[in-house]
């Protein structure tokens, strides 16, 4: 069986820029793994996340998601398999009711109304947000909004979840609840974050992306134990923590 995600020799430069974000990036994530993707601002974490679901397209190399090579023909199926949770839930929740947002993905898949309703209930139930179904997104707290955003991709039955900075805008207790949620989900996960304790709580493996290259691939514990390595890539534990 092939890896859940394989990024092979990826090269990408934003239009109008000279400096490439990636020039020969390789990443492999096995099925069922939860992997933290760390790195300083501007290292390309979000750019990589956008590639995994085909929102940005490789200029060289290829993306393989559960055995399927990303191309125009497989784009729709890849977007079903790889669920992308955006950094700002307000970007993701664009409808007036949480239920409609969670139904948006399945409706795009062309499912019938009963199946959509079933998926919506199940997805909201999975994130512990069944009671939010008829709420308006702007009435929710940061943590509730994040749950709703996760539900809005879970309803597509993805095999892989990619979460971009999932702890931003969430209070400390909300972070704990989110960590519990992520560890309870069966999907392969790539968690893009600056939040090292959160990475430790959710992911056994950690990658550090710096200047478009994976420079560290270690057990999360081992990375957090190495303060020199962290400092070299502008990463740091919160005050009061020690390696």
């Amino acid at each position, binding site marked *: 069986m092939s890896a859940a995600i394989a990024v092979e020799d990826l090269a990408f430069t934003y239009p109008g820029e000279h400096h490439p974000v990636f020039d020969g990036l390789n990443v492999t994530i096995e099925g069922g793994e939860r992997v933290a993707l760390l790195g300083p601002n501007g290292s390309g974490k979000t750019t990589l996340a*956008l590639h995994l*679901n085909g*929102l940005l397209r490789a200029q060289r190399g290829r993306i393989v998601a559960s055995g399927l090579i990303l191309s125009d023909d497989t784009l*729709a199926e890849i*977007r*079903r398999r790889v*669920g*992308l949770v*955006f950094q*700002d839930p*307000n*970007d*993701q929740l*664009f*409808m*007036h*009711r949480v239920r*409609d947002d969670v*139904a*948006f*993905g399945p*409706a*795009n*898949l062309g499912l019938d*109304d009963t199946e*959509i309703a079933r998926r919506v209930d199940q997805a909201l139930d999975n994130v512990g947000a069944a009671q939010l179904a008829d709420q*308006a*997104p*702007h*009435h929710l*707290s*940061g943590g509730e*909004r994040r749950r709703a955003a996760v539900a*809005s*991709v879970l309803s*597509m039955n993805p095999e892989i979840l990619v979460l971009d900075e999932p702890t931003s*805008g969430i209070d400390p207790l909300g972070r704990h609840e989110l960590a519990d949620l992520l560890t309870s989900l069966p999907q392969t996960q790539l968690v893009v974050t600056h939040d090292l304790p959160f990475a430790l709580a959710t992911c056994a493996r950690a990658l550090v992306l710096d200047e478009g290259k994976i420079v560290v691939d270690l057990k999360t514990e081992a990375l957090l134990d190495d303060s020199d390595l962290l400092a070299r890539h502008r990463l740091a534990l919160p005050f009061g923590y020690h390696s």
Partner: protein
Amino acid sequence: MTSPTAFGHQHLHVHGTSPIHRLAPEAKLLGLLGFVITVAVTPRQWLITFAIDATVLLGVFVVARLKARLVLGRLAAILPFVAFAFLFPFVGDGETTSVLGFSLSTDGLWASWNVLAKATLGAAASILVTATTPIPELLAGLSRLRVPAAVVAIIGFMFRYLDLMVDEFGRMRRAMAARAYNPRWLWQSRPVASSAGALFVRTYERGERVHDAMAARGFAGAMPTLSEASATRSDWLLAAVPSLAAVAGLTIVGLT
């Protein structure tokens, strides 16, 4: 995170269980359109017709159990437009009438009345509909009335993101005020203009991100329709009552 704002649409809808609240949104929208058109075509001197229209709205208001303060407060939104109409009696020519010692144009007075009466009736009717219908239902109603999906989507996005934009503008204004910016005169308006520009760019960028998030969930250009129960015959009939009454008012005065 989002604080309630004066412009926030979340306050438009007032929870209730009245028959008006329960009417299907598409029926209410069509009823509103019929009523407003009838009011708009009513000749300005047909006072009895306007009285009938106002009575009908009063009836809807009572059945919907809305608060008078709420409706009157929202009605204040038309004041800037109506204020402009009050210039007509002073600038109109032809016959004049003496009011409180002023010599005013009769035609201008009628023109003011025309704007005042129609704007008040039209706005009040719209307020009654928006106060009794949640935004998602209004949008569903529009799409069931075959309004093009793109137009419905644009209206939906506007309502969804209006609060965020207003909040963002509020934060920018506070950030300026915190640095002792207190504009009073036109030549101090530059920072306001440039923050409007910044807001435009931010909104544009948000639009791109929202579109990305939609594309990530398989959006390929067509909004999926989420079907729901639609209007029954009695909904249509009930929602047509104000329009029919207004048309009747028009006919009665027209015939006598």
